[in-house]
Structures are given as structure tokens and as C-alpha cells.
């Protein structure tokens, strides 16, 4: 069994709440049967107060062994480097100290969620008065609480399961991958995110793809059209498998009718424009699809706009289809 210790700090707890939605099996039984033993989780464990502090102290001092450290929430180093924005209850030492001590003994360290990976919303106040950062990044700059050079006992940097929140499958699959075959540096992308979900784009499997192809765009909330041109959607640039994996059964952000805000990316929380508006230069969205040359995008967009079928154009600005697809005979002629 791999022994897992979980801590929460400057975050909303939403990654744990999301994790509990894991399907199809009940999360706790599934992890247990896959070889993951939860030694401590603040939302799930029995031990409280002194009993919990003794347990954590033994882990942090290396007297009790464990394998995996999962941290959920940004590291709050303020005010003035004291860490007082989050002190361990009943103990009075900053959580940043606890995380540092535990990380020394962990074989693997997982940053659960974009707050923990990069700082996230906790670091979004102007001038970052919380002095919030991620475990090994501050925004997109390597560093963070543990520093650029940190490696866990297994020789890996922090594994960033970025997302706001994380999909339950990203966390469960990462833990089960570890139990099954381990992690190597080659399993991580350039931002230390597991490649199995981070080397997809949210655009892959987008149900609005026909609207995207024809640049038939939504103009207001609840429209069916593509959300990229006007509504701020970053799905063609965002690294995640949300539309092939899907959330809560059949959902995802774009399936829910609202834009992808690229919550697996560093600094997504401060995009420099309103979240639900697409910034444009001379009428062309600034953020073009990943790997797409601008001149080709402009040329193709102009061509596809002029070729848009009426059905696609009209449905794009309605909240339910107002024109049905024509019925064609599809057998070979």
C-alpha cells in the first residue's frame, strides 16, 4: 500500500469536493483497492486535535513513513513572510512550514489544483498581499515555496495536477498510475502536469465544433454557437481533456454554455480582460488556436464565415436548435 498524506491551505477545498465525485466506484473503496492508503486527510480522517497533531508531527519528522504528499491550496507566505495568513490550528506554526517539512520525507509530492501548482486565485489580488504562490511555481515562473531545484525522494519535481477545480479522474488516475507503474519525468509536460490529461486540448471533443468550423459564434450567454470569437473561450489553447473525459457525467464548461477560462494554466485567474469577453485586435481574437499560424487562421475564418450554412448561422445565436439538419440519402450512389 502507498501511504498518502493530504494537507489543505490557501484554497477553497473544491478539489476534494470534486474528487469525491469520482465515478463509477465509491472513491474511498476504489483508492483502497488500488493500493492507496489515506493516512490523513483533513476532510475525511477521524483523528482530531492532539491526536492529529501527533500523527502529523511524526510524519513531518520522519518518525512515521509515508509515500505521497498531496497539497491542496496555495502557499500563503504573508504577511511579510511570516506565514500568519494560515497557521495550523491547535499548533500555531505556519502551514508553509508544515508543507516544507513533510515534502522532505515524501517520495512523491502532488500539487492538487492550480492554486497549489501556480498560486491561482489566492495570488490574484493586486500586488499579491497574501504572498501566495504554488509549491514549485509562482505563476509561470519556476520557484514557489519549495524552490526550482526541489525533487522529492523519488527524484521527481512536484507533480502539478492543475485545474480549478481538478477533475476527479485527473487525481484518481494519477494516484493509480503511481501505484500501477510509477511516474517518470517523461510522464510530465513542461509545466510538470501529467501528460495523460495535459497533452489534450479542451477543444478536442468540443460539441460546438461545427460552429467553430464555420466561425458561427455565440453573441450572448446561453447561445449555442462557438464561444471563441466573442465569449472569451480559450478551449483551443487550454490543456485538458474536459470534453473527451467530461465532468459530472456529461458536462464540461463549454457543454454548460460558458467559456473555458483555461483553468489548468498558470495565471489564468488574471487574464487581463473580462473572462467572458474575447480580446481582439482589428476584429481578430488575440488568442488564436494553439499551433495555428495567424495568417492561415484569418484566411480560413474569412472563407468559412462566407460558407456558413443557414442552419449553423441561425442556431449559433439561439439557445436551442431552430433549424434541423436536412435529411440526406447517405447510401453510395
Amino acid at each position, binding site marked *: 500500500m502507498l501511504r498518502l498524506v493530504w494537507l489543505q491551505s*490557501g*484554497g*477553497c*477545498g*473544491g*478539489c476534494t*469536493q*470534486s474528487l*469525491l*465525485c*469520482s*465515478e463509477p466506484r*465509491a472513491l474511498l473503496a476504489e483508492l483502497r483497492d488500488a493500493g492507496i492508503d*489515506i493516512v490523513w*486527510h*483533513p*476532510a*475525511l*480522517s*477521524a*483523528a*482530531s*486535535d492532539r491526536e492529529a497533531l501527533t500523527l502529523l508531527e511524526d510524519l513531518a519528522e520522519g518518525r512515521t513513513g509515508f509515500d505521497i504528499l498531496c497539497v491542496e491550496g496555495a502557499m500563503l507566505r504573508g*504577511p511579510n513572510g511570516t506565514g500568519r495568513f*494560515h*497557521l*495550523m*490550528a*491547535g*499548533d500555531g506554526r505556519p502551514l508553509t512550514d508544515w508543507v516544507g517539512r513533510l515534502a522532505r520525507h515524501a517520495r512523491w509530492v502532488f500539487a492538487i489544483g492550480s492554486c497549489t501548482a501556480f498560486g491561482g*486565485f*489566492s495570488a*490574484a*489580488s*493586486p500586488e499579491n*498581499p*497574501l504572498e501566495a504562490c504554488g509549491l514549485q511555481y509562482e505563476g509561470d515562473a519556476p520557484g514557489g515555496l519549495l524552490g526550482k531545484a526541489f525533487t522529492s525522494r523519488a527524484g521527481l519535481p512536484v507533480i502539478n495536477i492543475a485545474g*480549478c*477545480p481538478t477533475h476527479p479522474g485527473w487525481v484518481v488516475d494519477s494516484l493509480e498510475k503511481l501505484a500501477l507503474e510509477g511516474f517518470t519525468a517523461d510522464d510530465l509536460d513542461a509545466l510538470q502536469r501529467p501528460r495523460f490529461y495535459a497533452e489534450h486540448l479542451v477543444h478536442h471533443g468540443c460539441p460546438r465544433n461545427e460552429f467553430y468550423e464555420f466561425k458561427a459564434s455565440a453573441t*450572448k*450567454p*446561453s447561445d449555442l454557437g462557438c464561444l471563441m470569437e466573442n465569449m472569451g473561450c480559450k478551449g483551443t489553447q487550454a490543456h485538458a481533456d474536459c470534453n473527451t473525459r467530461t*465532468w*459530472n*457525467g*456529461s*458536462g*464540461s*464548461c463549454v*457543454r*454548460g*454554455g*460558458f*467559456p473555458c477560462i483555461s*483553468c489548468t494554466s498558470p495565471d489564468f485567474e488574471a487574464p487581463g480582460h*473580462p*473572462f*467572458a469577453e474575447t480580446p481582439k485586435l482589428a476584429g481578430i481574437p488575440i488568442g488564436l488556436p494553439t499551433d495555428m499560424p495567424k495568417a492561415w487562421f484569418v484566411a480560413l475564418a474569412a472563407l468559412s464565415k462566407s460558407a456558413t450554412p443557414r442552419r449553423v448561422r441561425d442556431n449559433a445565436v439561439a*439557445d*436551442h436548435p431552430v433549424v434541423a439538419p436536412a435529411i440526406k440519402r447517405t447510401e453510395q450512389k
Partner: protein
Amino acid sequence: MSRLVLGPFNRVEGDLELQLDVEGGQVSAARVNSPLFRGFEQILVGRAPLDALAIVPRICGICSVAQSAAAALALADTAGIVPAPNGRLARHLIQATENLADHLTHFYLFFMPDFARSDYAHHAWHGAVSERFAALNGTASGDMLPARAGFLRLMGFLAGRWPHTLALQPGGTTRAISSAERIRVLAQIRDFRAFLEKTLFGDALEAVAALGSIDALQAWAEARQGDFPAFLRAARTLRLEQTGRACDRFLSFGAYDLLPPGLLSAGMTSEPLDIGRISEDHRHAWLYGSDAVAPANGHTRVAADKADAYTWCKAPRYAGQVAETGALARQLLAGHPLLQAFVASHGGSVTARISARMIELASLVPAMESWARQLTPGEAFCTQGEIPDEADGVGLTEAARGSLGHWLSVRHGRIARYQIIAPTTWNFSPRDAAGQPGPLEQALVGLPAGEGAPPLIQHVVRSFDPCMVCTVH
């Protein structure tokens, strides 16, 4: 007198520490400390108004949608936007899904595991209860987690995902449901009803919601299969219906066009809600200022070295007085006879608070079935409107844990002020300038504490279902 510091207080959402003065083995005074500061009100200042819809859900991973709803209502208030009827129904469905999933999470994962403690090994119920509810390894989570995940599939249809959706808008929701999807929504609600009736209650939801007196409830729980009846039998032996009384003044902002807003005082007299009477006191918080300030003029500025401060939580007051909020307050104001009987006999208590959540599960699921049937596929789910460049707005709603308010000012097209009062800010507030302790601080006084004391403090704290991350937004 001795002083105890209790923490970390796990199985609550977020971070909590208690400082207890103990005399003669009993708590003589309690101070509640929220030891984590988040600073979301500052994050919002300077942003475009509609950005609030992306930012506020991230205050809380467990009441994410309630935060979205309060922001959507505050934004609608600035512009006089009236949501489309379908949007209103969809929002009720989305909020009720979160509310009820939270009640389930609280009961099974946060609250019941304390009954598996070895302190209770001498009770006849202990063996069965600990096998069922022990933290991490009890059999109950194997039934409850798939039911919860299945129920939250409603969010996949209605809101894209949970937590942290942008589907709730001032004019309704971004996701129009088709008639085919409505069939699946109803099937998913039916699946949840089946779990509740078989596993949680051992009876039809309508029969549970109709339980009208303490005697009827106890008779119902006797020898009945089901997790709530098992709690009631254990709670009775521990007298939890007489444990955990706070201020007996109950506040609700009203919810679902079904549960009325108001303030209810001892004697079951209710008065209409007047939000002009709400203020926040900073006296014992590590924040500048000590006067009580109306949230429309409120501010949140860190003063980490302030003398006499002991928490990051402000002290909200209604007409200068302490108030408790939550499912119990909602159901009392709705006139539920069982909960009124509990409070009339022993005030707010552990059993009353838990029972109120159970009554809410039993009564809101049928309401959800009715809202889903009332949806009119093909009609609009979202009305459109512009947010003015200069405006003020208030958004009041109920989260699972109670009354949630957002106060918003827009100047020059940007958010100039954003103040939030969350449910646990009410319930776990510190003392105010007049020295009045908050509801939990009152509820802990008189409880046994120290070596060998039974874990009643654990039950009382968790009976409020605290959400500390909201508290210190």
C-alpha cells in the same frame, strides 16, 4: 481555570481552532478562531462586474454555486434584470442540488464518524454505528458516495460541472435544457430519491417530511432500518436534543421562492427581514476598524497585529444582535412543526440542526421533481441585460449552511467594493464590540471539556456544518 486550545478541527470545510476556558470540567468561555485568511473581496475590486461570476465560486468548493447565485442576484439587482422563468427554475435546481449534496456530505463524511469514537464503546448502538460510519473505512461511504456523484450528474446537464460553474447568470442560466434532457434530469432525481428512501430514511420522503412532533419522530425511528433513524437512536441516548443551544435567534434570507426570509426569535415570533439592520463588527478580527459597519459601506483591510483580535472572521449582527443561520433557521421560518417543537423544548440543538437538514432533503427532492416538470423546453433560459457603469446591488440567497449576502458597488464600469457575509461568518463569529459571543461561542459554554470528557464539543461544532473557507473569504 485552565485554557484549552483545540485544533486542527478536521471534518469541517476549512480550518478551525477553538480556545476554551475550562472551570470544573466545563467550558466557561469559548473563542472561535478562523486561522486562514483568503482575501477574495480584494481580488474582486477593480475587475469587470461580470468577472464576479468567475471569481466568487472559487471562494468555496462546497458552496460554490450558492456564491455564484448571490453574485448573479447582486448583478441583476444593479441592472434590474428579471430572470427568465426557465432560468429561475434551472437556478433552483442547480442550487438545490448543491444544497442537498452538501447535507449528505455533512451527515455521512463529516458528522457521523464521531459516533464511531471509542468513547462510546459502552453504548449498545456503538458496534453497528462504527461499522457503518467509521471515518474512511465505514460501509456507509460505499453507498453514499456513488449516490452523491450520481445526484451531482444533474450539474453536468444544468451547469456544465460542479464545483465552479459559470452557468448562473443575472438573467438565468447559460444552459437551455431540451425535452430529451429533462427526461434524464428527472430520472437522475428519481435515482437519488430511491437512495434516500432506501438507505438514509427507510421510508418515503413524503412520510419523513410530514413527521410533525418529537414523539412522532422517535416512534418513527424505533427499529427502522436507515441511517437517519440510527442517528436518532444514538442521539437520544446522548441527549443531543438538549445539547448545543446557541442564541435561539434564527435568520434566513429565504430560498427557492418556497422558504420565507425573516428573523425568528424565541417564542417562535418572526419578523420580516430588513437588510438595513445587518452590520459587521471588526472588534476582534485581525482587520482594521472596530465599529459595526453596514456591508454596503464595508471594507476588509488586514491588521495582523491588532490587540484583542483572535480570528480572521468578522462578527455580523442583525439589529446589533447575534443570529444563527442554516437549515434549522430556514425550516423554522417555514413553520415546520417538528423543528419548532425541538426549539420550543430545548432551543437550537445538535439533533434539531441535523433533523432540519434531513427534513430539507425529504422536502426539497419532491420540489426539484416539480421544478424539472415546470421547465418549458424551447422557451428562453436567460434574459439579457447590461450592467450599468455606476450602480449598487445586493444579492441575498441561502447556501446549504445558511444566509449568504453579496453587496456590490460598480463605479466607472469596474467593481469598486465587494462585501460578502457568508453563513458560517454568522455562526462562528467572534465577540463584537459589546462583548456578545457568536452563536458557536455561546453553544459551547457549559459543555464538558478536558481529559476524559465525552466528545460533545465535536458534535456541537459539526452540528453547524461549518464552512470555514467561506467564513474567511
